[in-house]
């Protein structure tokens, strides 16, 4: 029982970070109907930026989020403007898959050139510090990462629910033509939305680098997990992706602790398969547009 509860705690803390990554992925899908295959690569890029800021300039990995997040926001806006906005026609969805995959490969190439393919991680002095609470171990890094993810998700929720930009995003997601008729600039919303998605990847990347060893090719594993979470949560639903990330985090952690780490990754897909068999739209997928 102790091992089970310890695994649940670990799963929840890990799931929070995945929730942050996946919220950006599902936001981009909600606005643009683009399955962003570069989200994992953007997370890895965020991790490497944090690594460089930490090793070269001595900036604390958590503090580096203040630098990496706005930086990748701008990268996201630029990528959308330069590579996705020009796509037109009935096959935009398929073309955007190829384009975002190309972006992922491009980021992987640049990172391989700059950092080599060796696994690395970000190791601040407190990396191995943990508390014992009621007999259970709680890692400082995982706990702060989880809290930080909640704060970032809260900020995202605030932006979407309480700001004019957020209303324009939700309007575009729910009825693009109607939003345009009311004066919403769909191109601007898409660019800023992609930027926000990339910014969540940057923030998640900073903590991912402390929790995991990574190399430029780590994005393949990440994107498969993120797509699983986003599909499980219901495409376009941020709340759904948060719940799905927590479910996946716990399931994977429990299987890893009680069975074997070998089955941990496989758990993601088993859970996805089981949920989709019962509920094909995912946990929170809407019948119609407007899930955000």
């Amino acid at each position, binding site marked *: 029982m102790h091992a089970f509860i310890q695994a649940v705690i670990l799963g929840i803390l890990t799931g929070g970070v995945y929730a942050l990554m996946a919220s950006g992925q599902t936001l981009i899908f909600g606005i643009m109907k683009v399955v962003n295959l570069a989200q994992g690569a953007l997370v890895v890029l965020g991790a490497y930026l944090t690594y460089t800021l930490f090793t070269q300039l001595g900036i604390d990995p958590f503090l580096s989020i203040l630098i990496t997040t706005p930086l990748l926001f701008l990268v996201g806006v630029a990528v959308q403007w330069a590579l996705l906005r020009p796509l037109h026609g009935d096959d935009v969805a398929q073309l955007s898959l190829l384009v975002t995959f190309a972006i992922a490969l491009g980021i992987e190439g640049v990172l391989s050139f700059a950092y080599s393919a060796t696994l690395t991680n970000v190791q601040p002095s407190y990396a191995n510090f943990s508390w014992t609470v009621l007999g259970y171990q709680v890692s400082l890094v995982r706990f702060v990462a989880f809290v930080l993810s909640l704060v970032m998700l809260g900020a995202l929720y605030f932006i979407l629910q309480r700001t004019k930009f957020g*209303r324009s995003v*939700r*309007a575009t997601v*729910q009825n693009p033509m109607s939003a345009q*008729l*009311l*004066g919403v600039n769909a191109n601007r919303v898409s660019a800023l939305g992609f930027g926000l998605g990339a910014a969540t990847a940057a923030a998640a990347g900073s903590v991912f680098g402390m929790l995991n060893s990574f190399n430029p090719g780590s994005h393949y594993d990440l994107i498969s997990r993120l797509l699983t979470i986003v599909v499980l949560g219901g495409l376009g639903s941020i709340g759904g992706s948060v719940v799905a990330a927590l479910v996946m985090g716990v399931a994977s952690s429990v299987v890893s602790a009680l069975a074997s780490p070998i089955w941990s990754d496989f758990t993601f897909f088993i859970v996805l398969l089981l949920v989709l068999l019962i509920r094909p739209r995912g946990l929170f997928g809407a019948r*119609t547009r407007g899930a955000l």
Partner: protein
Amino acid sequence: MAADPTTTSLLELTGVTAGYGAGLILKGVDLSVARGQIVCLIGPNGAGKSTVLKTVSGLLRNAGGTVVFDGEDIGKLSSRDRLQRGIVHVPQDRSLFPTMTVWENVVMGAFILSDQALIRRRVEEVAEIFPIVAKRRTAAAGSLSGGEQKQVELARSLMLDPALILLDEPSIGLDPKSRTSVFASISTLASDGRTVLLVEQNARSGLAVAHKAAVLETGRVALTGTGQSLLDDPEVARLYLGASAQGRAESLAKSV
């Protein structure tokens, strides 16, 4: 001497052609909409009625001819620029944002404004005309009935205090009671001095509220007159006002 505002033209379409890709749907539309009037476009499916509205609001650019609004050729302006000039378009399909509240939906009608005090005042004014805005203020728009949603759409269209409202099939899919209510609201808009260009499949109700009407056939205006004169026209009555099956067949044969 100043022109009588009720007879001067607010919108003037001259030889307008428009379509998607190579195919033209509008093949030379001439139409004049006077200030403060309700003008109703009727015609068979595929005649180009909705396309006329899209060409005026900027969802679709005219390929040829001119679209003049308040003395200015607006053919090359974006839909946002046209919105700023006071042209609002309420599309045929349900256009509310279903998970937003009624209040949020109405506020979205003033998206291009930044003066918060003005927006608040406008919402209050609009809520007086359409009580449902205050009554169902916090309800998700998607939870309203079709008739209620249409009332909220009309309320939202007033948020910019527009000069011209383009209404595409406002009664489609509504029950008879809601239809009556919607047409009463449209009459109210005009009595407040607004100009309405209305596309309506339910021709009898559309013509009944219209000062002027036009019949659109295969991308051209085939006939114009007052709403009443078209209601009284036996040919229009035969073809569009509860026509007999034979009448419809003849109409179809003519258009082929």
